[in-house]
C-alpha cells in the first residue's frame, strides 16, 4: 500500500434495518444542461440488501445512471437522504466520498477504463495498493479466469478480457458493493455472457452486493430483483422467483 487511508470518521447513526446496505430515501436530482433544467431523479425510495444482485433497468434518460452515480459516491443528491449502512453520505465531503469509494465500492464501466500503461496485474494492483484488506491481484484475476494473461497490457487484450480485468480490479479490494454501468454494452453477445457469468460468480462466491445498470431487459433474468426506472421514477420492482444463470440468458 502506498498511501495509508486515515481512519474513517464516525458518521451519525441512522435507523437502518440490519441487512440493508443502501438506504435511499426521497432522493431527487436536478441539474442544468445549458439553459434547460433536467429532473434526473424525482423522489426515489429504495433499499438494497446484502448479497443480492440487482438489475437497474430503464431506457436512456430514465435516471438509472444518476442513481448509480449517487450510490457510488460520484454525485450528491439535490434533496433527500442516502445512507450506506448506517452512514449518512448525503452531505459527505469530497474527501469522505473518496474514502467511501476506495474502501467500499467496486466500479465496472462500459468501456472498461483500464489504465493503458499498466498490465492486467498492475491495473489490479493499483487498487490493492490503496485498499485496506485486498486479495492478491493474481487471485482476483484467477477469479475472472485471466490467470494466464497477467502481464498483458490492455492493448494486447480483447474487449471481454479487458472487462474481466476491470471486474478483477473492482473485486480485488473485497468491496461491499459492486456497481456496474452497462458492463456488456461494448461487448458482443458471447463475450457479454462470459462477463456476466464472471459477475454472477463473484456475487455468489464473495457475497458482494452487485448492482448492474442496463437497458437490455434480457439481462434482468439473472437478478434477484429488477428495478425499472422511467423518467426519474421507479415504476416497478420485481422479485425474481427463479434466477437463471448468465449462460441461459437470451437477448
Amino acid at each position, binding site marked *: 500500500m*502506498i*498511501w495509508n487511508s486515515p481512519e474513517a470518521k464516525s458518521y451519525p447513526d441512522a435507523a437502518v434495518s440490519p441487512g440493508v446496505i443502501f438506504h435511499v430515501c426521497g432522493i431527487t436530482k436536478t441539474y442544468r444542461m445549458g439553459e434547460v433544467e433536467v429532473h434526473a431523479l424525482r423522489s426515489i425510495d429504495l433499499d438494497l440488501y446484502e448479497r443480492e444482485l440487482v438489475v437497474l433497468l430503464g431506457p436512456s434518460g430514465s435516471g438509472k*445512471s444518476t442513481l448509480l452515480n449517487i450510490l457510488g459516491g460520484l*454525485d450528491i443528491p439535490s434533496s433527500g437522504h442516502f445512507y450506506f449502512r448506517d452512514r449518512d453520505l448525503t452531505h459527505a465531503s469530497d474527501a469522505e466520498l473518496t474514502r467511501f469509494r476506495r*474502501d467500499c465500492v467496486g466500479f465496472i464501466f462500459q468501456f472498461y*477504463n483500464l*489504465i*493503458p500503461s499498466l498490465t492486467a496485474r498492475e491495473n489490479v494492483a493499483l487498487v490493492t495498493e490503496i485498499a485496506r484488506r485486498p486479495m492478491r491481484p493474481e487471485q482476483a484475476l484467477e477469479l475472472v479466469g485471466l490467470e494466464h494473461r497477467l502481464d498483458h497490457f490492455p492493448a494486447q487484450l480483447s474487449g471481454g478480457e479487458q472487462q474481466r480485468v476491470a471486474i478483477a*480490479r*473492482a473485486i480485488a479490494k473485497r468491496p461491499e458493493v459492486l456497481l456496474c454501468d452497462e458492463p456488456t454494452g461494448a461487448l458482443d453477445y458471447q463475450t457479454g455472457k462470459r462477463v456476466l457469468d464472471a459477475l454472477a460468480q463473484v456475487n455468489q462466491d464473495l457475497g458482494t452486493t452487485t448492482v448492474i445498470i442496463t437497458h437490455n431487459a434480457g439481462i434482468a433474468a439473472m437478478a434477484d430483483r429488477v428495478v425499472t426506472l422511467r423518467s426519474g421514477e421507479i415504476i416497478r420492482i420485481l422479485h425474481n422467483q427463479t434466477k437463471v444463470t448468465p449462460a441461459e440468458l437470451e437477448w
Partner: protein
Amino acid sequence: MQALDRKLLRDLWHLWGQSIAIALVLACGIAIFVAMQTNYESLQLSQTIYYDQYRFAQVFGQLKRAPESLVTQIRDIPGVAQVQTRVVVDVILDVPNRPEPVTGRLISIPDQPTPMLNDLYLRQGRYIEPRAGDEVLVSEAFAKANGLQLGDRLGAVINGRWQSLQIVGIALSPEYVYEIRSSDIFPDNQRFGVLWMGREALGTAFNMDGAFNDVSLTLLPQADAAEVIFRLDQLLAPYGAFGAYDREDQISNRFLSDEIIQLRTHGTVIPTIFLGIGAFLLHTVLSRLIGTQRDQIAVLKAFGYSNWAIGSHYLKFVMVIVAVGSGLGTGIGLWLGSALTTLYAQFYRFPLLRYEVSPAMVVGALLISSGAAILGAFAAVGRAVSLPPAEAMRPEPPPQFRQTWLEQWGVQRWLSSVERIILRNLERKPIQALLSMLGIALAVALLVLGGFSRDAMNYLVDAQFRTVQREDVMLLFNEPRPARTRYEMTHLPGVLSVEPFRIVPARLRFEHRSHRIGIMGIEPEAELRQLVDRHLQPVSLPLDGLLLSSKLAEILGVQPGDWLTVEVLEGSRPVRTVPIAGLVDELIGLSAYMDIHALNRFMREGTTLSGAFLAVDDHQLDPLYSQLKRTPTVASVSLRNAMIQQFQQTIARSQGVITTVQVVFACIIAFGVVYNAARIALSERGRELATLRIIGFSKVQVAVILLGEQAVLLIAAIPLGLVLGYGLAAFMAALYDTELYRFPLVISRASYAFAVVVIVIAGLISGGLVRRQCDRLDLIAVLKSRE
C-alpha cells in the same frame, strides 16, 4: 465569418491557456531579436555615420616631438589622404567638489574652427576664442559625470604651472565614443576626461610651438594600412614615435566594434533558442488538438472540404498564436530596445544615438516567427490532412505500452503502480519527453548564463582589483624619472609604501607577428602588484627575461623559452632579443613584465622610473590628493577604490536590469514547457485519471500521477540545463576572449542554485495551474464516454 473560422476562434478560446503560454514564449524570442537587432542596427549605423561625417582617422600615432614641417613628408607617403597633427598631453586636473585628482587629456584644436580629422561635435556652448589661452571644451561624458556646466572652471597643472581653465563648450569626438583610459575595462568618466584646448595655448605651454606629438591620418580608398603604418613609423622613428596603429587598435573603436559584434551574436543565438522551443510547443499542442478532432476532420472531409481547406484551417490556428506572439514580442522588443539604447547612450557617446527601427526589421521578425511556427506545425497539419475520412471516423487506436528498459533491468520490484504509470508514459513518447526536457534545460541554461555574466564580471573585478592590483594609488609620470623620485614620493602625505615601476614602449616581434606594448618593469618582491597564474596563484618574477600574459603569447604565437625581438620605441630605440621566461594570466588587456632592474639594464640606463604604486593611509587621502594635484611631474593618477566603486555604480546596476529580464524570460520558457506538457497530458489522460479518482484515488494522488511525469522531466532537465548553461557560458567566454579583456569561465554555486530555484518555482506554478484543472475532472462523463 465562415463556420470553419468560428470553429477556429472557439478552439483558441478552449485552449487559451496553452495558446497564451506559447505566444509568450514566441514573444520572448521576438522581443530579444527585435531589441538586440534594432540596437545592432542603430549602433552600427550611428557608428558609420559618425565616423564618416566627423572624419574619424584611420591611422594613429604618438611620438615625443616632431617639427610641423614633417607634415609634408607624411602627406607624401603613398596612400595617405589627410593628415592631422596635434599636441596631446595628459595632465592632472582639479575638478570642483572632487577631492581626488582627475586625469585630463588635453588635445589641441585649431584656434579657429576649421574642418579637421576626428572633428568635434559641439553639444553645448561655443568654440574657443582665438588667443583666449584659458578656454577649453570638455567631453560630454566627463561634464555629465562631474556635473560641469558652461562657465565652470577647472584647475590644471600645465607644464609645472597651475592654471585655471574655463569651460566654454561641451563636445563629442569620434575618437572618444567610449571614453576610457587605455588600461581600464570600463570608463571612469568622473576621473578621466578629455579637454580640447587651442593649439597655440597648448603648444606654448608644453613647448610644442611649431611641433606636434600626435598624428592621425585618413587613407585613400585602395591604400594598404600596414604599408602606411610601416612608412610612418620609419619617418617618425627619429622623433621618438611610439609606433603607429590602425583604427582596429584604437581603443574606443575597439570597444564599440566588439560590442556591436556581440550584440549581433546575442541577438541571433538567444532568439533561436526561444523560437525553437516555441515551434516545439506549437507542434505538441497542434498534434494533440488534431488528435482530439479526428472525427471532426473526418466529418469535414466527408462533407467535401479539401485537404487544403483543412490544412489551412489548422495553420490559421498557428498563425493566430504567432500573430499574438510576434505582436506582443515586437512591442516588448521595441520597448526593451529603446531602453537598451538609453543604456548604451550612457556608455557610448554619439551626437545622436537614435533608436532606429526599420520596417524591414519588424517584417523580418514576423517572417522568422511564422517560419519557426510553421516548421513546428508542419508535421501535425500534414497528419491531419493525410488522414482518410473512414479511418479518421474511428477513434485513435489505444496507445501501446511496454515495460520500460529500467524495468527490464529488474527495477520494477521497487516501483509502485503509480511510479510505473509515470515511467511508462515518459518512455512511450521519448522524443517529446526529451524535447520537453531540453526546453526546460534551456531555461535553466539561460539563467545560468545570466549568472555567469555577473559572476565573471565580479571575478574579473575581484581578480584585477584585489589580487593583481593591490595599490591604493597608481601614479604615472609625464617622463621617465631618476631614482631619487622614489624617495620624494615616500615623503608625500600618508604614503605608507612606494613601489616604482618602469614602462618602456616597445614593439615585440616574433617571426611575422608583432605587437605594440609597454613593457612594465616592477620590483621583484613587489607587493602592490601581484603576478598570477590561471588559478590566481602568485607567479614570481624571474631575474631576467620577460613574463607575458598568456593572451599576448597567443597573439605572438610564442611559448616560454622562445626569444622575442624587442624594438624599443623610446630613447635611442635599441633593438634586442629577450627570452620569454614564463607566462602570467591576466584578464584585462595584454601585458609584458620584467624585473625593473633587468629592464633598466636592458635599456642601458641607471635606475629609472615611469611611475609608482603607492599604499596610502586612508585618513590622509585629502592632503595627499591636494599635493598630487599640484605635482607637475605627475601625468595621471588612478585610484583603485574609485574604479571598484565606479564598477558597482554603473556596470553592476545595468547588469541587474538585464538579469531581471533574463529571469522573466527563462521563467516564461519553463512555464510554457511545463504547463503545456501537463495540460496535454491531462487532455490525453483525463479519462484514465478520472477512473483512478472513481476507484478511490484522492485528488492529490491523481495529481501526483499527472504532474509526476512533469516533475521527473523537470528534475532530469535541471542537471542537463546546468551543463548546457556551462557550455553556453564557455561559448560566451570564448566570444569575449579579446585583447581588451577575457571573461573567465566562472560560475558561482549561488548562480547554479538560483537557476534551479527559479525553475523549480516556475515548474510549481505551472503545475499548480494544471492541478486546479485536474481537480475539476468530470468523473461522471468518464463512465459514459469512449475516448
